């Protein structure tokens, strides 16, 4: 089941896209395509097990984990997946 906080939008604030893109209404931002795999429960991924944003927003324990993972401004990874 798709994440209940997923929406597809073609604009938000100062950003506009030709095609609607994955937008997280819990985090109030467009999400990376790799995160959209989780939003959509694609490839046997599940938002309620694999998304720390959902878990934190839903008040479960997943959002409290250590996030020392990335180099982007929002703390998420930007490196390639080859």
């Amino acid at each position, binding site marked *: 089941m798709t994440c209940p906080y997923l929406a*597809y939008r073609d604009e938000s604030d100062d*950003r506009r*896209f030709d*095609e*609607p*893109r*994955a937008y997280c209404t819990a985090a109030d*931002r*467009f*999400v*990376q*395509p*790799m*995160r*959209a*795999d*989780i939003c959509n429960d694609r*490839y*046997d*991924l599940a938002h309620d*097990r*694999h*998304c*720390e944003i959902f*878990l934190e927003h839903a008040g479960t324990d*997943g959002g409290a*984990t*250590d*996030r*020392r*993972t*990335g*180099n*982007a401004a929002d703390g*998420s*990874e*930007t*490196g*390639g*997946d*080859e």
Partner: protein
Amino acid sequence: MSYADFLEGEPLIITAALTGGVHGKETTPNLPETPEEIGRVAAAVEAAGAAVVHVHARRPNGERTFETERFQEIDDAIRRRADDVIIQHSTGGTGAPDDARHLPLRTDPAPEMASLDMGPLNRYDHLTSENTRGLVDSLHAEMVDRGIKPELEVFNDGHLNEVHGLLERSDLAEPVYATLIFGPGTLTPPRPRNFLNAIDNLPEGALFNTLGFGRHQLPFATMGTLFGGHVRVGLEDNVYYRQGELAESNAQLVERVVRVATELGREVATPEQAREILGL
């Protein structure tokens, strides 16, 4: 490969990683996503000095796909616009099932190269890209069948063990070509001594490519140039030109590393020279 190879003047192969599968235009509007955008950018980085383009495929909304048909559209666009650049398909990523990981190998013609992740890596807080030995072996077998040169992706030193294991299990066409990757998380910590150790732990005669994520891209490309290896740059791995300033394009990142190589006295390989070095 070593500093001696640098001194002997082996031409430098530059790979441009154009788009990747992790982030999209929500991170930088300069990232190409559609086949036509990727085709245009491939031509631009080739003109700037790249011999290889590392390719991922996206849906129209920017999300990743492994579908053969989308890779075919991208390859067709690249071949229409670029002269002679070597196409390297990605087979890596997220939690995609094994069957999907094979699909990028099935274009017509097959890509000359494809990536082969050598083991697991963590993503975010609850996701691991597994890359089991079974998947590595099945992807490699199909690459052999289709005449595709594997680019062995070494995300950490444990994956160097996996390179040696793959060599024991399979006949890899020489020269073995491995990309040494440095950065946060599951990657090898980006320190120069770790780079030298990784080079020392490669199989005898192996060539290496150098990949630093984020702000490590330029320093590691420079070290890779000096240590006699090859280099990969591009918006897949680093979206900044310098701190706080987004790169304008993939070509801008290629142009910078060409300038570095030229200053260091290292010739930049043409696609034809790269094919000879890589045994394509």
